[in-house]
């Protein structure tokens, strides 16, 4: 390590080994929570987005209601309702569900997953609805079945239109996960709050955590640029 960094680390009482351990624990919890909720959310959202484009009202209206509810209310409120609401259900403490919902991790995972799935559903719904009619007609003319059309034409072309908006949703989700700390999860923000209250040093604690969030965001942006280049490679200039 360069000398000035070592000297600086010795000269301050906030960034000691315990602080770094707290941040590390927080990083692990944040990454777990966000990664899992995004993966599950995406898996749920794609079928919902397809069904949301269904012409039958009894299929698309319930999904519309779900996305409306979860996009129409703040994530913090959803988290409070799920975390504290579940504990108020009479007798829940005696069922096996309590083993899952006793810890704050699963209520938070549930809230985050339902929230991101609602947004992702709408992102993909728009992308699917914007599929050029000609592509579908051509696929039909080739005699492709509904499922084959979906797999070969509709979904790949929707993915190209959705990828930028979805990258935004992923970054928003990472930052929204900061509220996990209000239900006692020691995520990055929770770790920063603990460090802050231990040393009464808001600048050090929160700037430290902000840098970690920025590094995570940088990784996400980089990964999505790679994905975008991959999906949109047919649009690149020849030989480029």
């Amino acid at each position: 390590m360069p000398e000035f960094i070592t000297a600086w680390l010795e000269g301050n009482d906030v960034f000691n080994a315990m602080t770094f351990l707290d941040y590390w624990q927080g990083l692990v919890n944040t990454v777990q929570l966000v990664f899992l909720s995004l993966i599950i959310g995406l898996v749920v959202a794609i079928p919902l987005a397809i069904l949301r484009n269904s012409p039958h009202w009894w299929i698309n209206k319930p999904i519309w209601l779900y996305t409306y509810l979860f996009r129409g209310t703040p994530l913090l409120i959803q988290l409070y309702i799920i975390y504290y609401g579940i504990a108020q259900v009479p007798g829940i403490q005696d069922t096996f569900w309590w083993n899952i919902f006793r810890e704050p991790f699963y209520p938070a995972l549930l809230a985050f997953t339902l929230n991101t799935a609602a947004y992702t559903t709408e992102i993909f719904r728009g992308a699917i609805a914007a599929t050029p009619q000609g592509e579908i007609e051509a696929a039909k003319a080739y005699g492709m079945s509904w499922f084959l059309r979906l797999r070969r034409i509709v979904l790949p072309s929707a993915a190209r239109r959705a990828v930028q908006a979805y990258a935004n949703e992923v970054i928003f989700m990472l930052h929204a996960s900061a509220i996990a700390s209000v239900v006692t999860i020691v995520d990055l923000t929770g770790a920063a709050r603990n460090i802050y209250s231990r040393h009464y040093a808001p600048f050090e604690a929160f700037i430290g955590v902000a840098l970690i969030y920025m590094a995570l965001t940088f990784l996400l942006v980089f990964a999505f640029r790679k994905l975008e280049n991959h999906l949109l490679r047919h649009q690149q200039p020849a030989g480029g």
Partner: protein
Amino acid sequence: MKKLIVAAGCALAMMAGTVQAKDWKDIRIAFDVPYEPFEYRDDDGNLTGFEVELAEAMCEELGANCEFVIQAWDGMIPGLQARKFDAIMSSMSITPERAERVLFSEPYYNTPGGWFAREDFDTDVTDMDAMDGKTVGVQRGTTMDTYVTDNLGGVVTIKRYTTADDMVLDLEGQRLDVVFVDYPVGEQTILSKDGFKEVGEPVKLGQGVGVAMRKRDKELAEMVNEALATLKEDGTYDDIMDKYFAYDIKM
């Protein structure tokens, strides 16, 4: 013309600022509500409680014009340093760590920390083996937090809450086995409900509670100390204390 008005305004503001810094005719005092019975809103929405009444009496003694500010606990010391208010009278216990950042008056009360749990809890809180694996709730950044972290750190799971309300909800919902909280707060918010009890003995913590001010406002601290000493002697303090407590917290 506009520039002139702005300049005059600035000059006036600066004058007002220096006047205020000199003789402390206006003091802004911060409270974190609700923290019954120290500071809370009564049924009509008025700010009241032991510390609020003590602050009112102190301001009267000082002949100062006091403004009461509501500030969440997390942002207390930063808010003081950012000059959002001049003094904190919100049950802030005197600790060496805090004393590095703020200037404390002489302590004006001290209450112990108490253990509270549901009726079915029968573990001895001083028995480390029995406490192994239990989940304990504390308010983040309080002396109770420091005590549990230092003494039961590796033994129990510690959950830290921003507000006492959230903590009591999780004790009710059985996410916590026991909470360690400022005794009067536990008495008001937990023991007042059915199905809860106090466990173990209250633990005396820290050096009491003082008024916290900015380090450089030494004059204000002197004035506050004098006023508090007068109130403690002439019986005003005891009258206010007897209104809120059945036991002695005077210091």
